[in-house]
């Protein structure tokens, strides 16, 4: 017990006490005139999200090649592929499961999935959170009451709000990330059964199959046309196609 020190507060002289008190009164008066609040008055104003914000996911059926990559990569199993009336498979998202990692958007080889900044969609129950393909094509209906958007700024080690009049755009078309160019190749040509499923599924017409004289089938993958979507790799029943890095000569 003897070795313990008593904690003592700092001692101010009179001049310092007056100085700190006057500063405190000054801050109080400044706040009463020009409040310096941190609160964002949603929905009258919105926080401006960065352009690559991971929000509601939009879908463009014209760009979808039905490669199932989004549903395979989804770590939360939120994406299911459903057959559309045109016999193609398009994704549907269950927002009750979605963790907004946007792996689906990153893996989308056709660029059919796009991110938006929308983070405030309301649902009445869990079943409604299941979003069919049709509802993913258009932005969801939002009543915009916001007149300003708000940004946080750091000035002199202090956090400030910066309010700007006008509406923030909720959908910004961010260019897709730069991909490593991949190309489909056959790793075991002798095991090819020649079913031509790869040529049939290829959206870009990169794989051609032609019967030559003498009864042989000539298969060719055009590296310039191949986008590396991996659809043929998935469909090959002998699993002899593989995506390799494209080495341009």
């Amino acid at each position, binding site marked *: 017990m003897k070795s313990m020190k008593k904690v003592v507060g700092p001692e101010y002289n009179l001049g310092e006490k007056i100085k700190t008190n006057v500063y405190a009164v000054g801050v109080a008066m400044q706040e009463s005139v020009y409040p310096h609040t941190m609160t964002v008055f949603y929905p009258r104003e919105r926080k401006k999200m960065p352009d690559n914000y991971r929000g509601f996911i939009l879908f463009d059926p014209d760009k979808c090649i039905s490669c199932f990559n989004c549903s395979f990569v989804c770590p939360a199993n939120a994406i299911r592929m459903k057959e559309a009336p045109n016999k193609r498979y398009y994704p549907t998202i269950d927002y009750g499961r979605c963790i907004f990692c946007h792996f689906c958007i990153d893996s989308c080889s056709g660029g059919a999935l796009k991110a938006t900044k929308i983070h405030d969609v309301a649902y009445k129950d869990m079943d409604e959170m299941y979003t069919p393909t049709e509802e993913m094509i258009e932005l969801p209906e939002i009543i915009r009451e916001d007149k300003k958007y708000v940004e946080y700024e750091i000035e002199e080690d202090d956090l400030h709000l910066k309010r700007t009049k006008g509406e923030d755009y909720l959908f910004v078309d961010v260019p897709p990330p730069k991909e490593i160019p991949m190309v489909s190749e056959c790793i075991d040509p002798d095991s090819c059964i020649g079913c031509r499923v790869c040529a049939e599924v290829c959206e870009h017409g990169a794989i051609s199959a032609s019967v030559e004289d003498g009864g042989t089938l000539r298969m060719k993958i055009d590296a310039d046309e191949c986008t590396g979507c991996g659809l043929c790799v998935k469909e090959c029943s002998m*699993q002899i196609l593989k995506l390799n890095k494209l080495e341009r000569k």
Partner: protein
Amino acid sequence: MATAIGAAGQSEWKVAVPEKPLKDKTYFENLKTKVIDTNLCSRCLTCASVCPGGITVVDNIVDFPDYETKCLDCGACVRVCPRFVYEPRSGLGDYIDFIAGRSKRFAGQDGAMVTELLVSAIEMGMIDRGLFAGRDEKWATEMFHVREPEQLAITTLGGTKYTFADVLPALKEAIMFTKRGVGIVGTPCIVSGVRKLQQEYPIFRERVKLVVGLFCTENFHYDDISKFLQEKGVDFSKLVKTDIIKGKFISTMTDGKVKFKVTEAEDIVASGCNVCTDFTAVESDASVGSVGSEKGFSTVVVREENAKKVIEYIKEKGYADFGEADTSQLDFLIGHKKKREENIKR
């Protein structure tokens, strides 16, 4: 393995397309007219295992529903069918060793040597999975991938079922997953199918490492044999084992046995078996059966070096007792099946 990760691929390759005897028909129609409709089909399902369309079994007959629209006309079925160009095999075939064995670890039909061979091959590291035909409560077959010897605790994996199993479609699935290799067991027709697949496609050549054949006189479709056995008074819920010994079909139940002559079941023998002359699975790595050895032992005909290695491993570990086997006892059944050659020419 040629298909190792990082293997360089090719962007251009050629595939040999088999010839069509019927020029303007699809390959499946060729197969249908030449093999299926002529009752040559053994229902080995080699075609179904490679078909990217949908060859399947409908009413005990190999069929392709909607082949007019769904057949891709690739010719894979014709390439692999062991009976499209049928070269009937018979006799005992070439062998290195002819022995009788009884497993100390497993219970099976006789000496449980099929189970012992495949499990020992897994332990040796030759294969990483073996395909076993198991059965459900109603004695319908279902395929199991065995990767650990402990899985043999499922007692329904051992023992003969006398009905067809979908071994080869399961094999196709297994070679896609395997890291080291697959071991399979099957009737002579299935063994022929595997050899044909291996001959045509390197992926099967590299990944199917052990093929164990069974002695087989004939096989039955599940619907037929289950109906037939029920008429004879066999209760499937109590059935423990089925066996054919000296021309008698014996169904062992928990409360007794039902015996009858196999010749009584002649009408329900699968049509493909009437043209099969191979009793000992000549093309296998090792053939196993009960004929030729004492009660409780299995006869093992070791034909290839890989099977020889497995037998040596079993001997080294002391997993099984070995005894003498007699080739002359097989002569009757080999001769019996050889007579079926007449049916082919008909």
